[in-house]
């Protein structure tokens, strides 16, 4: 039932969404500014996009960041899913309290602490710093975020399918691979995408654990922003917003269709 939304809530929602989106809209508008200022309009131009696509440093950083993000997202999704499955389905096991703690703490731990701590580990064991160390550090916090998403999905799953498979003699590993994983698919995709963007977005941890020659996109953007604003960064931001919006809308649409298909199948099955 719908009791209606109170007026104060509507007011705050309008304000809140304006607050969340105004900077993004302004960012996009000024990426097409012909002048160098990011606050005074002086005419339409795509000049800054051309400039951006010729900036070797940024292009190289994009490539470094994307490689890290893909490896990170893949490993974090595997580890996060295993962790989420253990927490959701295994009941009590030895060391569960510590495990729960380690799966939740990265969600809130300030980046500067995680960054410093992880760096000290790599220095302590004498690991050469670079792309590999950034990837490892990213996996560590990403897997906790993946686990949150996957766990929410596991707890909303209908367990009877897994039970049916096991009743029919499927071994637990096979049940997990053939029944559980496909049912978790939307959460796995969402988790992968989240881990990917978290990695692409991280400045602080990467700065701590990076070595010479490994500059991620946020590290390059940060050093540019420190020197002052530039419409080139606006152009970059616009491209990122565009790409993310496309991905999110596409993913939402695919899942929506899938869910509807599943519901139809279910209804058909119930009708016999």
């Amino acid at each position, binding site marked *: *039932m719908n*009791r209606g*939304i109170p007026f104060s809530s509507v007011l*705050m*929602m309008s*304000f*809140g969404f304006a607050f*969340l*989106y105004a*900077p*993004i809209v302004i*960012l996009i508008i000024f990426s097409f500014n012909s002048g160098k200022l990011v*606050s*005074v309009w002086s005419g339409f131009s795509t000049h800054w996009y051309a400039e951006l696509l010729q900036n070797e440093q940024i292009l190289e950083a994009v490539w470094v960041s994307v490689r890290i993000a893909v490896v990170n997202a893949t490993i974090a999704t*595997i*580890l*996060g899913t*295993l962790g989420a499955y*253990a927490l*959701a*389905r*295994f*009941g009590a*096991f030895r*060391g569960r309290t510590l*495990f729960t*703690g*380690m799966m*939740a703490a990265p*969600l809130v*731990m*300030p*980046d500067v*602490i995680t960054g*410093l*701590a992880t760096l*000290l*580990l790599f220095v302590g064991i004498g690991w050469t710093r670079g792309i590999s160390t950034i990837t*490892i550090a990213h996996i*560590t916090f990403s*897997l906790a975020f993946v*686990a949150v998403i996957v766990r929410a999905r596991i*707890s909303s799953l209908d*367990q009877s399918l*897994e039970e049916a498979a*096991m*009743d029919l003699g499927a071994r637990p590993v096979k049940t997990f691979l053939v029944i559980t994983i496909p049912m978790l698919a939307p959460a796995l995709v969402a988790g992968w995408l*989240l881990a990917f963007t978290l990695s692409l977005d991280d*400045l602080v941890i990467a*700065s*701590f654990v990076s070595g010479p020659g490994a500059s991620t996109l*946020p590290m390059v*953007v940060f050093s540019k922003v420190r020197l002052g*604003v530039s419409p080139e*960064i606006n152009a*970059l*931001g616009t491209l*990122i917003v565009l790409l*993310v919006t496309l991905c*999110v809308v596409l993913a939402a649409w695919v899942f929506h269709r899938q869910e509807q298909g599943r519901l139809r199948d279910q209804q058909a099955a119930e009708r016999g």
Partner: protein
Amino acid sequence: MANNPSNSPDKASTVAERNSRFGIPGRYLVVSAPYIWLLIFFLAPFVLVLKISFSSAIIAQPPYTALFDWSAGLVPDIKGTLDSYRFLFWDDLYVVAYLNSIKIALISTIICLLIGYPMAYGIARAPGNWRNVLLMLVILPFWTSFLIRVYAWIGILKNNGILNNALIGLGLIDQPLPMLHSDFSVYVGIVYTYLPFMILPLYANLARMDESLLEAASDLGCRPWKAFISVTLPLSFAGIVAGSMLVFIPAVGEFVIPELLGGPDTLMIGKILWNEFFRNRDWPVASAVAVAMLVFLVIPIVIFQHFQAREDRD
């Protein structure tokens, strides 16, 4: 076979119980990969931070002294020092930065709650289709580059920025307000960045609240506002705590926002830690700053985990 009682499935058994079929070795195999990973790359580093905070800085690689001297034989000679901690407590800079970080994080959390609660409430009450769209609108900014969204505020808050130009254009002010590089812009940046973290747990909590309680209250003559205070608000307590912790804890250690939007006198502990490490190259003091921050954050982190665990049981 179906008639064989020993083989017939027990209807009451849950998947959790059936997973015992994974067998003890199987279960440990599943849990051990993430477990070992977190032990090595999450827990061990904190032990190292603690260890190095008791060392002293030297110009070498790595730039700190060894805590244990094994040259004497089987029993190591412990060369720990409290110098870094003494330094933290004697120098006003650190104490002030500490208190200031907590103040800024606390006020930002309250502002996020004041904006986020009505928003989450509105989304939870919105009709089905709208609900998903609104929820997506909350999540979407979270997926786009945080750094670039913070950067966008520079162009808005600058002296010759969009907001000042607009206010002057409207004739409300004749001198630009110095909004950028002040505590004000840090608050704007933190509230802006962390607002979705407040809204999402609140929404999750409010969306599954049992409506019949509110109906009962209104049937019994309770006015909507009173029903909100005495029914909805207490029931959403877990969501309020989860959201507040997701904002407060990372905000205390925030670096990027005070660095880009704050002024030279905006002291925050995350910025201090960064500077100790990258500018002064004093790893032991940076570690001591981290340990001191953690000691303070342990209580909110434990509260957060407690509520996470409680949500899991529901």
